[in-house]
């Protein structure tokens, strides 16, 4: 900040920088799963976090010392962060074809948006910290910075699938020879006898029962289900390779008589249900589902359950699914 007309407020800058960096570091630690864990990824993020925090922390001292040029340059630097989302999205999209169980476009969008916003959040925390330090005393500024930091962590922690859905183990079975069921949810038709034997011997079935309305609308969202399948596969592995399409983990709703229950079938490498359960419960609720509270098929569900009057639904479903006592 040399060349300005006033003295530089170093205390404000340092407090802002520290607070911003801490905000970014905290979110990185909490959300490690979202993020590439190899060293390169961390270094890139740390660097971006430092730049973001510096921008946030320097804006107030720059403006106060009437250093307009510096302030303008800092806002220009901020626009760079918007490009980060695009880069992140492109990377994940390119990776999508190379991983066995994809994240799905909705999840990728969520991850990229979160990544971008975290840098802006770090900037904001830094700006507030340095603002408080400049206009209050140093200790008050540090206090405000810490409060902002905690508040930012609290505000940005999104809800998890486990808060809206109960996850329990279900029994894997085949009906009519080839229809794969987990409890009473039909998932798919498996044509190969060899695969069916393997599914029965090694598969894990998981039943997802919504405990809130949001949980139900979440499960109706295909993007959210793909995210759950991805996280499940990431946690326990999946016995799959190119040429084994039927061994992809699937999440399906109970149809044709929907009651909001979904089921997941996975052919894991590690047969560890607690780990699988923890991974599903920790899957973030996607942005696209957050605002959606009332699932559309709810209206139909009552109609179907009360009278079973829709002949089409009745005719299409396997006999075993008919809700007779």
């Amino acid at each position, binding site marked *: 900040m040399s060349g300005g007309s006033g003295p530089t407020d170093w205390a404000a800058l340092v407090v802002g920088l520290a607070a911003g960096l801490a905000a970014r570091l905290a979110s990185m630690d909490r959300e490690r799963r979202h993020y590439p864990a190899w060293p390169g990824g961390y270094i890139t993020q740390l660097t971006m976090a430092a730049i973001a925090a510096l921008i946030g922390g320097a804006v107030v001292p720059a403006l106060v010392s009437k250093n307009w040029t510096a302030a303008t340059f800092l806002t220009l630097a901020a626009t760079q962060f918007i490009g980060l989302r695009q880069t992140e999205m492109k990377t994940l999209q390119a990776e999508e074809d190379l991983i066995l169980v994809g994240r799905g476009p909705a999840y990728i969008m969520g991850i990229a948006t979160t990544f971008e916003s975290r840098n802006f959040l770090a900037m904001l925390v830094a700006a507030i910290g340095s603002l408080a330090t400049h206009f209050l005393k140093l200790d008050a500024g540090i206090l405000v910075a810490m409060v902002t930091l905690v508040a930012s962590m609290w505000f940005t922690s999104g809800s998890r699938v486990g808060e809206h859905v109960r996850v329990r183990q279900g029994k894997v079975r085949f009906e009519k020879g080839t229809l794969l069921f987990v409890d009473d949810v039909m998932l798919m038709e498996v044509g190969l006898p*060899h695969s069916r034997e393997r599914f029965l011997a090694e598969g894990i079935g998981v039943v997802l029962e919504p405990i809130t309305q949001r949980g139900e609308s979440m499960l109706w969202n295909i993007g959210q289900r793909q995210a759950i399948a991805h996280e499940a596969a990431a946690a326990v592995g999946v016995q799959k390779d190119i040429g084994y399409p039927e061994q992809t983990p699937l999440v399906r709703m109970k149809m044709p008589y929907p009651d909001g229950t979904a089921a997941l079938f996975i052919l894991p490498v590690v047969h560890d249900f607690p780990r699988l359960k923890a991974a599903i419960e920790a899957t973030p609720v996607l942005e696209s589902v957050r605002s959606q509270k009332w699932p559309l098929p709810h209206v139909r569900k009552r109609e179907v359950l009360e009278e079973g009057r829709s002949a089409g639904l009745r005719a299409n479903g396997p006999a075993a699914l008919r809700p007779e006592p």
Partner: protein
Amino acid sequence: MAEAPTPQVFCVVTTDPGRVVAGGAPVFVAQDEEEQARIAMWLSRITNATVHDLHNGVFVLVVNLPGAGG
């Protein structure tokens, strides 16, 4: 996973040729059910197509992208 193609019946494996009328997809005729399952499995592994049993002696191999969105 980026672009989802339209599901397409890629080929048919049957023990009963009378059940299938050729119409675009190649039909493989198997001697018995064991051979049918074996042919279907090989074709599936080779082409990454999913095998579905129509319960009338006909297996269809369908090419689409699996996953929750399916």
